């Protein structure tokens, strides 16, 4: 589609313009070339098919290779057909392609636009009078002929690669590729206004450069919009050249250099942030609700399939924690189940096995190794066929659980007939964790549950940019403290907790192996506990 559009434009350009901007254009146009190449590659596949079809190869194996094409076809067909498997009609090449390197031209162009945008805004800032509407189009037309042409010829994605500011423009303006310049500049002016207004808010003091003044001079020169711009262009070629070099030399402003510090807004503490966040109602709540209802209808089916020996893995964009939590509360109330937060920084297979042996099976002995423990559990579950256990693992692909050994052990657990596993994965490459052997252990059924909900709980153990920082990785240090304590200390912590139950409003944050209660207790009361749902924030208050 894109290349077609471009070729159309090229034609138009042939008729209309002769000039340096075309040259510039050609420099900037490489991107299109690359795309065409990609299409050619696809064509190659087709020809292969044509060539290969008629020759019936001798061996059966080859025959099956031939069916490759069929397979690809089937794949494509199903991608289209399937309700949930994504509508990427152009197959895998978009999803699976390598990231193409940014061309130097592109970067330069990016730079040039970035170099220009502040100028524009400044000029409009200066002339904050009724003239603005007339001035700006001229301004834009005048001072950046090359810029304009770029704007015209960029396809959308390229355009986006300009300053983020450009996004807004693109979003508002339906991009007509018409050759009437007046129309174009008119629409452009609107954008500039928008940008200007935004920038006014921002009140950034930028010093005027000489060049801007020079350009303003050009702007003020009487230029009629409707005249065919040929002549004018020729006059400005020197300008263009200058601009070209300027754009390519000014490497220091490659990216927007505005930082959060420049915002006149103090960093919030966690509480205010949470308060602010809670006030925002998420967009598309009706649609999201519908999506969620759709998934909830699957609960019974999941239970059925779990019981029939499959295990279930959920994937898709958005946090699946709430969904699983709802599944747990609606379906699993009468069953023994273990919820495992894979995103918890201190989680390990050992702790999972421990909670199974100690709390589910009430076994108080110790084990020499994890494998011994696993064997013991497996035997136990094999002996007692009436025993049933549901494992809910949020983020099976988390840092702590993605190791080969952990996956092997969890896989072996899940392959037991009376252990049912339902897990969620988020990482793009999560399926790479499992080789064939593990996959057959897990016996997965995949369910896509795209929820678009925020990974609030999952990321609460990490730091936010907008929150005051205090120490790095607070929670991992917390677990270190925990590990270094003797069992005695833990039990004393437990006892301590018992005595202070009435002082600490929420019991759930402090289960029995949380000896830190002594430390925290003192600094606890002033805060409403609802905010403190994470270890990160907890540390904020205590340190």
């Amino acid at each position: 589609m894109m290349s077609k559009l471009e070729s159309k434009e090229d034609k138009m350009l042939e008729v209309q313009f002769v000039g340096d901007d075309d040259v510039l254009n050609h420099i900037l146009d490489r991107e299109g070339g690359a795309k065409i190449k990609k299409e050619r590659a696809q064509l190659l596949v087709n020809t292969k098919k044509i060539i290969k079809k008629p020759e019936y190869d001798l061996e059966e194996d080859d025959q099956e290779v031939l069916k490759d094409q069929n397979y690809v076809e089937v794949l494509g067909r199903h991608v289209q057909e399937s309700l949930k498997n994504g509508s990427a009609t152009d197959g895998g090449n978009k999803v699976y392609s390598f990231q193409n390197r940014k061309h130097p031209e592109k970067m330069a162009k990016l730079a040039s636009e970035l170099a220009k945008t502040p100028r524009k805004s400044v000029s409009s800032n200066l002339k904050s009078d009724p003239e603005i509407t007339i001035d700006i189009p001229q301004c834009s037309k005048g001072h950046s002929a090359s810029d304009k042409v770029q704007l015209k010829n960029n396809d959308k994605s390229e355009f986006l690669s300009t300053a983020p500011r450009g996004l807004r423009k693109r979003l508002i303006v339906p991009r007509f590729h018409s050759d009437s310049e007046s129309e174009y500049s008119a629409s452009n002016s609107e954008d500039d206004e928008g940008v200007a207004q935004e920038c006014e808010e921002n009140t950034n003091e930028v010093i005027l450069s000489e060049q801007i003044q020079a350009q303003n001079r050009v702007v003020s020169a009487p230029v009629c919009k409707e005249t065919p711009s040929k002549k004018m262009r020729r006059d400005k070629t020197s300008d263009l050249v200058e601009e070209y070099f300027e754009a390519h030399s000014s490497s220091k402003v490659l990216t927007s250099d505005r930082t959060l510090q420049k915002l006149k807004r103090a960093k919030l503490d966690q509480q205010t942030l949470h308060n602010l966040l809670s006030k925002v109602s998420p967009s598309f709540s009706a649609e999201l609700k519908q999506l969620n209802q759709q998934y909830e209808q699957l609960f019974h089916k999941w239970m059925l399939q779990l019981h029939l020996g499959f295990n279930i893995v959920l994937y898709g964009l958005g946090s699946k924690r709430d969904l699983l939590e709802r599944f747990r509360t609606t379906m699993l109330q009468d069953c023994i189940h273990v919820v495992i937060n894979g995103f918890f920084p201190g989680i390990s297979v050992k702790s999972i096995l421990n909670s199974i042996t100690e709390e589910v099976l009430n076994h108080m002995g110790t084990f020499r190794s994890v494998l011994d423990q696993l064997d013991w559990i497996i035997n136990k579950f094999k002996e007692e066929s009436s025993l049933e256990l549901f494992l809910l693992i949020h983020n099976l692909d988390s840092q702590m659980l993605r190791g080969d050994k952990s996956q092997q052990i969890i896989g072996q657990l899940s392959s037991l007939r009376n252990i049912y596993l339902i897990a969620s994965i988020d990482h793009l490459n999560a399926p790479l964790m499992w080789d064939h052997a593990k996959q057959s252990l897990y016996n997965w059924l995949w369910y896509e549950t795209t929820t678009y909900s925020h990974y609030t709980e999952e990321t609460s153990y990490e730091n936010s940019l907008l929150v005051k920082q205090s120490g790095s990785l607070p929670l991992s240090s917390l677990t270190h403290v925990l590990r270094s304590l003797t069992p005695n200390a833990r039990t004393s912590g437990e006892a301590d907790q018992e005595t202070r139950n009435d002082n600490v409003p929420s019991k759930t944050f402090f289960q029995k192996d949380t000896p830190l209660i002594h430390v925290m207790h003192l600094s606890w009361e002033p805060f409403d506990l609802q905010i403190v749902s994470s270890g990160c924030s907890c540390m904020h208050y205590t340190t």
Partner: protein
Amino acid sequence: MATSSVSKGCFVFKPDFKKRKISVPIEDYFNKGKNESEDSKLRFETYQLIWQQMKSETERLQEELNKNLFDSLIEFLQKSHSGFQKNSRDWGCQIKLREIPTAALVLGVNVTDHDLTFRSLTEVLQNNVTPYVVSLQAKDCPDMKHFLQKLASQLMDCNVDVQSKEKESVQVTQKKIHYSMDSLSTWYMSVTQKTDVKMPRKKRTPPSQWQSPPVVLILKDMESFTTKVLQDFIIISSQHLHEFPLILIFGIATSPVVVHRMLPHAVSSLLCIELFQSLSCKEHLTTVLDKLLLTTQFPFKLSEKVLQVLTNIFLYHDFSIQNFIKGLQLSLLEHFYSQPLSVLCCNLPEAKRRINFLSDNQCENIRRLPSFRRYVEKQASEKQVALLTNERFLKEETQSLLENLHVYHTNYFLVLRCLHQFTSSLPKYPLGRQIRELYCTCLEKNIRDSEEYASALQLLRMLAKDELMAMLQKCFKVFKSSSEKQLGNTAKRIEEFLAQFQSLDAEAKEEEEDTSESQSKGLQKTDLYHLQKSLLEMKELRRASKRQTKFEVLREQLVSFIDSLAREYLLLPETQPLHEVLYFSAAHTLRQHLNAAPRIALHTALNNPYYYLKNEALRSEEGCIPNVAPDICIAYKLHLECSRLINLVDWSELSNIPLYICATSSLSIHPMMDT
């Protein structure tokens, strides 16, 4: 929420003991999924019944297919072990005694199925050869010490298994001992002497003539063992071979050359290797399909697309029969879960009985089936009315239709096999070598329309007599074995063809004599002109006679006969009324659950939110994101454009969203982006 904490990641929930007792039967989940499901209990029972049958059938097949391999393995073990028994002073035997008998078992790359094979192999060996069967995996044995430890502990376990459990306490203490080959051999000596006494009481009695049963060590994945460990072990154990009769079995996934690649000559010369090849997994798949789907034994059938998906997963992903069976199970489950009329998917008499008890709703369901509607439209108008209004008439009609469907399948598979006999040995295999390929083509479209079919017939027209006869013989056997009445006529026809071909032999001889006579007559002196003329005449004559050769006529008849069979019986299942009852066709759900593409889902969710959130505001053209889209989509777009840095400030201002949203969005992007 009760499941988040600063201090722990695992939360155990145990309901009260009383509550737990009332466990929900699985059928309930089957019911509740759908609000107005019909006969769900019956459907679930049918599902379980069919699945159990299919499962036991596959297990039986597996056993059968492994039988040959196991038999030859056992024979090898017994033969090699007899070397130990003969205490001859023969020099050859002395040399041989230094060599460890080894079976290299080439299993192919379908690693997931190996476990099953080894498990049954262990069982077979324990029953037939020796109680001491140990299997080790590479990941348990990173070095020699672990190797020996594992070996020893498993050996002792074998022993404990056989003997009484009273030794258990002893065994636990033993575990900590550092094992050496010496200790193992002394243990072996002591144990064999003891078992000699206990032998008669044992349940699994190895053949009594064996004074000392061999120790069989199975290395499941020979390729992944470290070379050093293997070498050391082989050298050491070959030293102890006279007191510790060891036999090795290597499980090899790739090729037998790997043994020599891993072990230097000095070591591999200590092994006396014999090669065993397991059945190729493709053969296995063909048999499984043949016995599960190409038969009227199981009413459940797969549509072309589903079959394609399953075979593709098999051929392009894992070569695993187990996974294939899993796919089959899932499609069976989905069929019974989603199709209310699947209650009729059972054997014919039972289905007929069930039709009588169908509820009104189910009758409505029948009327709604597209294939049934097509059928109704073809009927006369009075019959149409009766079918659409009269329940009883409908039920009777359904019964007869189901019976037709059954007959159709019986004929279909017979003719399919017959056609397969004819086409499977044609040069270049236009219709495939395996019957499953032929089946797929037949399901996909009308076979007579396909080019491959035309070329196959063309090739058949060129076959020699003996080839044709062989094919006919096989075909005849197929029909004989089935003993179905419907196609009895066909069997007779084939028999006739056979007889005719045989009688051709005699005639052909006579003809040959004729031609030789005529040739001898022709040898007279002539001039050039006459010679040319007579040659032309002979050519004409030959061409004419060729057309009339009885064999060719007969061959032509045979081909057209096969063609007529295909035309009559190999109809598309979609043309049959009520095929929805038996055929599962939702290939995309199967693909979605078995072979998901999380990457594509993420990509779509980020690039095209309209796909999930059906809001018109989100509808956009390709490659463009509306500014109302969820901010994670916008962020992703920005990330794609400039992957290094996204300026939060700029972003917050351009999309006019409050800054604090950005903060959370930047977080929520994180788990996906970090790779």
